[in-house]
């Protein structure tokens, strides 16, 4: 699964400032909502579902990266957004470090395969130090999408 197929350009945040995990997650969910991916009435419910998932264990998986996610019936295909936090966000990560790159995923409950493929795609690219470094330097959503396309085509 290619990143550019499910990351929503209009929802990318390249200058996230958040004082907490919940603030970061809310900003990203709002951004997906503003991009028209689900109705506003679902916003609180999606944030709550993602925060509930965080209780099972932080999705801050180390290397300055977090992948908060949930399943939710308000989407009919896998959607994701990316946020870059230059100052870092305290995320109770597994390695105790702040996070600088966040991928937030929402997948339809009846499509577990798509969720796994999305996670696989994100993880595969995030293992690449160049990808992470370029992502952190991106200044606009257009920069990010160009990087995602390069990664999808193994041009990094």
């Amino acid at each position, binding site marked *: 699964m290619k990143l550019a197929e499910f990351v929503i350009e209009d929802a990318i945040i390249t200058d996230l400032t958040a004082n907490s995990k919940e603030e970061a997650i809310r900003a990203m969910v709002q951004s997906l909502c503003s991009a028209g991916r689900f109705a506003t009435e679902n916003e609180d419910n999606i944030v709550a579902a993602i925060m509930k998932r965080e209780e099972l264990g932080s999705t801050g998986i180390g290397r300055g990266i977090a992948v908060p996610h949930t399943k939710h019936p308000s989407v009919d295909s896998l959607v994701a957004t990316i946020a870059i936090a230059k100052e870092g966000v305290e995320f109770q990560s597994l390695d105790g470090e702040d996070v600088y790159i966040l991928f937030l995923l929402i997948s339809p409950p009846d499509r577990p*395969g798509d*969720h796994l493929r999305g996670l696989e795609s994100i*993880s595969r690219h995030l293992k690449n130090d160049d990808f992470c470094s370029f992502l952190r330097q991106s200044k606009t959503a257009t920069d990010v999408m160009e990087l995602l396309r390069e990664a999808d085509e193994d041009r990094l």
Partner: protein
Amino acid sequence: MTLETTSHREVTVNLESGLHMVPCSRIAEHVRDFAGTVCIMVEDRSVDAKSIFDLLTLRAPLGTVLTIEAVGPNSDDLVQGLAALFERNFEPE
């Protein structure tokens, strides 16, 4: 002196959502302090079980058969412990 041994075990993913992030975290946590190497293999792919990033690339849905391979001191214990995690579907003991 503890002998370095190699152990294998096949396990099946019995989670409805497949091997998603929670079980991957549990696996990485379980093997973190093992003084050897642990791989999890499916078909022609093999990943380092100490790396959650690697584990997430397994993309293993319900029913996938995985092979665990551990090389190091008391590798049998490590593999049995991992297999037990799969058998109880990653629920706490």
